[in-house]
């Protein structure tokens, strides 16, 4: 049986004196292993609380490096960590937090090729990833290997939490992610946090609840969120706990675990399958800079939203994409017009529309948008 040292008994004493938890609950935490997939907004509180709580072995999977825009919510990292691999910066901090934990670091993307190999060594998986392909991959791999998947997910002000593939007393398994959502939404409908934004404290709330579920599952204390879905709207403070059951539409089940094959999840989620759009004429940021320097007579149009303009702009005329048709009279036809957005996709859409439906032929897309301008021409501009 796993034993706790004197120092561990003292460190975890506030757990030990909870009557239902006790030394036995703490021993179970020490003898359990948890893989945290994603070291971002959810991963930060998850890892900190699991480390503090005394989980025996914690694995960290992430391939990203720390970026300035992560620091608004990913409280595991400091300003000095910007540019470092996330797992490296995270484990350094966690080791200082609790020297009794064994950490395993995977500085890689979880893929269909490596997922089974990585997950097989853990009892519990905590899914804190930020994209649909990895969510379905983690789910399918957990069902195949019989691992419990503690799930949380966030978007803007909204969060979801559940415990999937839970092992019940009779040996059967609870519902999994695919009982809830048999297949993913089309690309673009539900933006990522990078595209759609997220309120910084939300992953702190959901990640802490997720850590609590992991601790309940690992210690055997309490009632995990098996067969239940918790929904939280931080904007309105509306909370709901809904019942989840197994769906007859779901073919990825514990009963058919042997038949599960991991697939190409990017293709499955429609990533890379987008219809190729017609190319439009474009100029790079260096050319735009030259046009400005020689005071060429042209018009610069910014098709982003006003809240983006407020973050940074290069003095283009602001006509948001959705207003282009109504305000078409403001777009010149008698001289060159450069259209820009954040990275060059929305502006290309606007140019295609104006060329196809309104006969424009004097439009140029700014390659890479305002982000390219910030990278190559004016580093004082804020990137977002």
């Amino acid at each position: 049986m796993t034993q706790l040292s004197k120092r561990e008994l003292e460190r975890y004493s506030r757990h030990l004196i909870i009557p239902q938890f006790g030394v036995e609950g703490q021993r179970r935490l020490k003898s359990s292993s948890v893989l945290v997939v994603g070291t971002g907004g959810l991963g930060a509180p998850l890892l900190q609380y699991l480390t503090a709580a005394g989980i025996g072995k914690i694995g960290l999977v992430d391939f990203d490096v720390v970026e300035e825009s992560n620091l608004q919510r990913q409280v595991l990292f400091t300003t000095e960590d910007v540019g470092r691999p996330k797992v490296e910066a995270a484990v350094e901090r966690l080791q200082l937090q609790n020297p009794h934990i064994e950490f395993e670091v995977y500085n890689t993307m979880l893929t269909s090729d490596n997922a089974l190999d990585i997950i097989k060594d853990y009892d519990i998986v905590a899914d804190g990833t930020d994209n649909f392909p990895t969510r379905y991959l983690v789910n399918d791999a957990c069902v195949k290997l019989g691992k419990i998947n503690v799930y949380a997910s966030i978007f803007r002000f909204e969060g979801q939490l559940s415990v999937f593939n839970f092992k019940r007393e009779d040996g059967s398994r609870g519902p999994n992610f695919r009982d809830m959502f048999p297949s993913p939404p089309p690309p673009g409908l539900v933006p990522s946090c990078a595209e759609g934004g997220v309120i910084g404290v939300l992953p702190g709330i959901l990640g802490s609840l997720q850590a609590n579920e992991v601790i309940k599952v690992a210690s055997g204390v309490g009632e995990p969120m098996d067969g239940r879905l918790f929904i939280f709207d931080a904007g309105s403070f509306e909370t709901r706990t809904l019942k989840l059951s197994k769906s007859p539409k779901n073919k990825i089940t514990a009963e058919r675990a042997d038949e599960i094959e991991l697939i190409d999840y990017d293709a499955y989620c429609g990533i890379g399958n987008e219809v190729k759009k017609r190319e439009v004429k474009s100029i790079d940021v260096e050319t735009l800079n030259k046009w400005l320097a020689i005071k060429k007579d042209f018009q610069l149009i910014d098709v982003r939203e006003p809240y983006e303009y407020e973050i940074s702009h290069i003095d283009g005329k602001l006509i948001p994409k959705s207003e282009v048709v109504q305000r078409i009279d403001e777009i010149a036809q008698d001289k060159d017009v450069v259209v820009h957005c954040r990275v060059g996709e929305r502006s290309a859409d606007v140019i295609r529309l104006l060329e196809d439906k309104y006969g424009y032929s004097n439009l140029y897309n700014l390659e890479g948008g305002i982000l390219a301008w910030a990278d190559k021409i004016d580093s004082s501009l804020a990137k977002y």
Partner: protein
Amino acid sequence: MAKVLIPTPLRKFTNNASKVELEGDNVIEVLTSLTNNYPDLKPYLLDNDKVKPYIKLFKGEEDIESLDNEATRLESTDTLSIVPAIAGG
């Protein structure tokens, strides 16, 4: 008649409305009222009167799949929650 809760990712189709009171005696009738009011929502919510597989519907706290699916009856006191898959972390 029922109260429908609209989740964040779909509010761009409902002029940012998060709660809407709608006519209808069952789930599909209420959803039809919803998509009549907000036609841009329809392709993301329904496929030939069936709810899309990346969306779950709950009457109160019950999954409509465990009730009568799209034919589940709704009273004026009922709340229908639309819950889509989200993936942020």
